[in-house]
């Protein structure tokens, strides 16, 4: 599914760029500067949108993968390890809150 998403996003800017090349050239072949700047802007916007979508998709996959790793890790801990972890987290919380309080002061 990831590869399908990637191929779709690559083909979309390619097709768009071929269409806009036509639009930016005058009849004699010279560059129409007004149209060129508009198309560059729209191309950049399209590219940013596609890149953002892809980045969002990758971030989602990473989020789910991290959740799976963390879940299996916590499930593998013994009762003693869980208790020790809770005690250490309790001490660390006191340290962090003291640090934050002293920063505020």
């Amino acid at each position: 599914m990831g590869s399908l998403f990637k191929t779709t996003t690559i083909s979309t800017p390619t097709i768009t760029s071929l269409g806009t090349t036509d639009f930016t050239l005058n009849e004699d072949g010279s560059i129409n500067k007004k149209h060129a700047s508009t198309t560059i802007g729209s191309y950049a916007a399209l590219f940013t949108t596609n890149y953002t979508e892809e980045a969002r998709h990758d971030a989602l996959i990473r989020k789910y993968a991290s959740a799976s790793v963390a879940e299996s890790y916590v499930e593998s801990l013994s009762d003693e390890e869980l208790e020790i972890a809770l005690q250490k987290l309790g001490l660390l919380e006191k340290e962090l809150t003291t640090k934050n309080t002293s920063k505020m002061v």
Partner: protein
Amino acid sequence: MGVAEFLEKNFPGPVKRFESNHPLINRLMKKELTYSDKIFLTEKLGASKFQKAVFKVEDIKYKVLKTVCPNYLKYSDKLIDWQKRKKLKKLHSDIERKKVIASANYQKKLSHKEFHREINRNYHMNSNRPLEIIRYLEWNKNVHKRGLKSDIIIICCLLIISCLGIGQAAIIIPFELFSAFINFQCINIQNHNIYRFKEKEDKLRKIQEAQIERNSTKYAEANKLIADKHRELEDVPTIDDIISNVETIEQLQQLRKLIEKQKSTNNMIAKQKGKC
């Protein structure tokens, strides 16, 4: 080809054929059994009763293992590391290497979980990933299928040998018959559980997706902390490795909630095992 179709083809005309008024038998003849029918049949073959025996054997197995080999996890981790190194020698691509390392870490964590909770991955569903068990049930079923095939071959060979005059071979036959019976019942239990989960697969899939979405959002910071440590070490980190990298209150609070949630799940598992 079903029985009814065979009769239709080979004995046409006014021959009295077997027809049943029982809907289950009709569906069986036409090979149109539903999951409920299959579950019913596996129950009739003794799945529920044998399942209780399997759970009792599981309890005894882990108690004996913890008594005889309390350092079992150390040896299990060493074996997994050795298998990992063997696979990594053949691989050069970065992605393949990461897959092998992730798989090895997951196997280590699974065997730790099985040892601490005294639950076999083949017999107990994970409430966070309910569909995962179907894969393990299929794997377990194939193991017992291979066992049953070899038992049948050995019994046939022993019968032939004992017919040829070597009477001592007949002494082994009852043991092989018992082994074949156990393998058959294990296949029956796996089928029973596979049908039970497949019957509710859509519902379980929705539950699994909802769990994944909820857990990945609710504990996002803690998950990232643990996953980053795994990536950094390329091995399963200790709890001290994780806690020493906690930097914000949010990470700490999420990590604590995750651990407390696991504690209550563990208590529930222990109570359920007590009931069994």
